């Protein structure tokens, strides 16, 4: 048990030594915390977006079938749906109608979608982002220009609640009749088909059968979409991390310098300790504890701040960088979520470079000659 007591004693001494040099150590912890804060923010943000996407797609159908014409997505006849329905293992097939509408006055793209349950023609439900964009004098109507040049004035029934703002902000829910009028869609056609199957394990088999049966179609599996999202989010987040690596490097240099640039007084203190009976490895142990205390406190502080930043302040610092492929993106709150694994990865990413940067300077300090204090 002397081993534990020794660790305790030396840790105790280390803490008091850290407190005696508050200024220097606080500066280091401050910079360290900032680095962890930025890295953790990027990671939390990308992970939260990924999860958000996964949550949205959770309720999406396992498979979508689109028709291709000259390599481009085209309208699909409803007859196709009936043919697919006959394949064994298919539970149900539904047609969907959706599209994009460019609003020249705002320079924004809206997503139009026909909702099955809704409602009589002549009215719409709109997302929060669109509502904000509307000029105030339209008395609850939304003018949309149809394919033939005429205008439809649709009554705004309500706005979408903000639960899932990531998708709903630019969304317009519309009736089938109005939709077909605006885009001049012929009867018996839909944008794409959604397929539900009885046994998810047969998905690939059914997809193959569909391509054989209807060679001009393309089945898209939900898992594939998820994978693409995953890859693209990883890529965006990773790119930012790479940029931040520069800051890690700068920090490592700072840590190195702080650790090697000891004042005369600090050197003398180490000399005294060695003279009165501390051994080189005891000093190294002290430096180890010092590094651990500095790392862990900065790490915890940085992670907590990043957590608050991402989940409680709407990630004010990154929004423009990481999302922003549409003009209309509103402020939205991500669901708080932390994965233990990403914290471990972050710990590796910050603590390992710091520890190694301080290794040689600590060793230099620890090998100060003890008789230095006698020489004067």
């Amino acid at each position, binding site marked *: *048990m002397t081993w534990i007591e020794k660790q305790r*004693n030396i840790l*105790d*001494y280390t803490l008091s030594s850290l407190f005696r040099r508050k200024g220097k150590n606080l500066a280091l912890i401050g910079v360290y915390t900032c680095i962890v804060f930025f890295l953790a923010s990027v990671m939390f943000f990308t992970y939260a977006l990924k999860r958000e996407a996964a949550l949205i797609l959770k309720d999406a159908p396992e498979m979508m079938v689109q028709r291709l014409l000259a390599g481009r997505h085209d309208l699909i006849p409803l007859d196709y749906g009936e043919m697919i329905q006959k394949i064994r293992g298919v539970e149900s097939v539904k047609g969907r109608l959706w599209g994009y509408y460019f609003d020249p006055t705002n320079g924004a793209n809206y997503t139009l979608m026909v909702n099955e349950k809704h409602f009589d023609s002549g009215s719409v439900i709109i997302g929060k982002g669109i509502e904000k964009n509307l000029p105030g004098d339209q008395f609850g109507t939304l003018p949309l220009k149809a394919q033939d040049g005429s205008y439809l004035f649709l009554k705004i029934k309500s706005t979408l609640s903000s639960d899932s703002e990531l998708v709903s902000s630019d969304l317009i829910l519309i009736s089938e009749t109005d939709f077909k009028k605006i885009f001049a869609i012929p009867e018996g056609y839909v944008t794409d088909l959604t397929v539900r199957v009885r046994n998810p394990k047969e998905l690939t088999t059914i997809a193959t059968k569909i391509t054989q049966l209807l060679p001009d179609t393309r089945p898209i599996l939900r898992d594939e979409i998820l994978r693409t999202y995953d890859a693209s989010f990883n890529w965006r987040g990773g790119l930012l991390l790479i940029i931040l690596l520069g800051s890690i490097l700068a920090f490592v240099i700072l840590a190195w310098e702080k650790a090697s640039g000891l004042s005369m007084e600090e050197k003398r203190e180490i000399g005294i300790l060695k003279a009165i*009976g501390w*051994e080189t490895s005891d000093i190294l142990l002290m430096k180890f504890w010092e590094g651990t205390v500095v790392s862990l406190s900065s790490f915890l502080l940085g992670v907590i701040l990043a957590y608050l930043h991402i989940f409680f302040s709407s990630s004010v610092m990154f929004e423009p960088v990481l999302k922003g492929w549409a003009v209309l993106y509103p402020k939205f709150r991500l669901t708080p979520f932390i994965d233990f694994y990403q914290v471990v990865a972050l710990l590796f990413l910050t603590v390992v470079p710091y520890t190694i940067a301080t290794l040689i300077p600590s060793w230099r300090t620890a090998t100060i000659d*003890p*008789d230095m204090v006698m020489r004067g």
Partner: protein
Amino acid sequence: MIQLQNIKKVFHMGKPNEFVAIDGIDLSISSHQITVFKGPSGSGKTTLLSLIGSMARPTAGRIFLFDREITSLPERFLTEVRRKTFGFIFQQFNLIKGLTAIENVMTPAYPSGEKRGSLAKRAYELLNLFGMAQKASVRVDWLSGGETQRVTIARALINHPSIIIADEPTAHLDTKLSIEFMDIMGKLNQEGKTILIASHDPMIHESPLVHRVIEMRDGKIIRN
């Protein structure tokens, strides 16, 4: 008990600033005595004490401590010998600033892994012995010269050393405190401790308590 055979210590060997601090010393020091090394500064007495106190290794020659050779011990073991055998009192006191008196006294024993409670008790008893009990939790920066000296002595005793090494202990003390210091050394000597002092203060080498005076110059012993 301490034997030195043809000890040499050269700093910066082979470089232009080569400096021979100890130049072939043979010496034998017996236990339970107060031995004083005298000589001008630069005569090598401090270096000799640091070699005896196993703080540094000689460039050549052999040192025996209680019939055990310590010359070729690696630093790891040399430190252990130093911690268990010697107590040090330095010229500039060398207390750690910002720590309290009792923490300073405890510091040399930290690496041995002693329980904090018993260690603190022992440190307190030592401070009490020198009349410093009520100042135990005062930061050493705020102590007077005499008080600092007594904390230093208490610290030197925390690991139960058999040998006490003092380097110019009275350089920063007035006459009264110097006498007090020698009284304490006399008491410790009576308890059986061996005491080695390097000093050019006549108060010390003329003290009746001293058993032996060794005079040094230029890294050699000139009078024994």
